[in-house]
């Protein structure tokens, strides 16, 4: 075994990380998110262990709905990456395909991915834990639409980042949505968050959806205002995400970077 060769392998990675902000971020990202998330869950369990007997419903419902958002986002951004990896982006962008059509096509892909994930998870939840997500009734459709919309908005920001910074930014396709997990109130109510994070959560559409889900499971009622707020925020973020992607796309045309993406 040659120490020098081992050093060379290390050095190659060191050089890679030295020039890559996203890779450095990645090294700290997962531990930070996990720590925050499970920390709040523990807090919540401590406070609510006596008064709240619906853990399974809350957690499984949260998990299934969170996966809707995650799959919707990845349906957009990972599919975009697939075109980059296959070096197919150039062929697509010299075809008559419009950006809006491309995005709509990817959104369709993400709907299929969401449907598959939802089908598998809700079936397993019913079979293994006796939890039936369909008890949410009509509201489930509105929750799903809102979570898809937020997933797409995050997906658009991810795609814009990849188009701007190249494959350096591809880690965002898996990481960016998780940044919103602690403030989306997926597994615990917003009130468990410190006040400054509650203010951030108020700007996150998913937090209203998950609050709504818990209200429905616990009290069998839901204030439509929650869903309305989520819908307005989602519309705003979707438009902002779309405009950002268009701006970055135009910048890529100016820089001439599209033919080089994936090289």
């Amino acid at each position: 075994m040659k120490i020098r060769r081992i050093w060379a392998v290390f050095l190659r990675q060191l050089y890679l990380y030295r020039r890559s902000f996203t890779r450095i971020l990645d090294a700290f990202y997962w531990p930070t998110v996990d720590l925050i998330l499970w920390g709040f869950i523990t807090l919540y369990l401590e406070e609510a262990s006596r008064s709240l007997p619906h853990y399974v419903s809350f957690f499984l419902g949260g998990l299934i709905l969170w996966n809707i958002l995650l799959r919707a986002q990845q349906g957009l951004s990972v599919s975009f990456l697939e075109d980059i990896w296959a070096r197919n982006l150039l062929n697509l962008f010299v075809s008559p395909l419009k950006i809006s059509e491309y995005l709509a096509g990817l959104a369709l892909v993400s709907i299929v991915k969401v449907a598959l994930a939802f089908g598998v998870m809700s079936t397993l939840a019913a079979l293994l834990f006796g939890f039936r997500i369909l008890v949410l009734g009509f509201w489930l459709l509105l929750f799903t639409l809102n979570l898809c919309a937020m997933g797409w908005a995050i997906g658009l920001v991810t795609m814009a980042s990849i188009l701007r910074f190249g494959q350096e930014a591809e880690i965002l396709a898996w990481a960016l949505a998780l940044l919103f997990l602690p403030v989306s109130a997926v597994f615990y109510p917003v009130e468990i968050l410190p006040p400054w994070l509650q203010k951030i959560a108020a700007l996150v559409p998913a937090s209203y959806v998950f609050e709504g889900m818990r209200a429905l499971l616990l009290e069998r009622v839901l204030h439509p205002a929650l869903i309305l707020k989520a819908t307005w925020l989602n519309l705003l973020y979707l438009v902002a995400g779309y405009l950002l992607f268009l701006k970055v796309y135009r910048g890529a045309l100016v820089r001439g970077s599209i033919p080089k993406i994936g090289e």
Partner: protein
Amino acid sequence: MEAILEVRDLEKSFGRVRALDQVSFSLAPGEILGIVGPNGAGKTTLINCLLGLVLPSRGRIFYFGLELFANRSLILEKVNFASSYVALPLSLTLEENLLVYAHLYGVQHPKGKVLELLELFGLAEIRHKRTRSLSSGQMMRLCLAKALLNEPQVLLLDEPTAGLDPEMAQKTRELISAYARRQKTAVIFTSHNLYEVERLCDRILILFKGRIQGLGKISELLETFRVNSLEELYFRLTT
């Protein structure tokens, strides 16, 4: 004859580097224009501008009398592109790849058209194979099949014979030439192979440091610059 493509005073700079400088030319239906020049001359930037992939710093591009960037989607329905450096997704079969693009280009009867082109390019028997199994010659033929799916009025070919063996390169040239004459398709063809440019192209455009050094029929250019061969002309204008 009315120009099918008109490029007016095209300029493109990347920072301080001027990749294209005052490039103007036009193309008639059925005409084959060869673009030659050393590496870094601006050929690829020019092709990318013509494909709408790069926004020019100045100047304008008109296809069929319409400005490219204002009518991008409409124009690109009648334009297509193939390059020896741009493959199609390797995980899909040949037929699947062509079907995807047939739908993208709005081909009327996708399955029939795809089969017709696969047969034309001698790929019909392997149409269910994954694209990753193709040789470079077969890959180029598949890319050319993709480029002809929409029966383009303007065809942009970036070094389509690079990496092909002489026999396959000759077949590719014959195919392009026959297709352009038959369909009245205007073709822009970049190459480093002066022999094939001389054989195939009606006119040539010699590009050097982003500027047009010579444009016209080869015989006229030889006479104008008082040289005996295209090779001599090329070195005169690009060194």
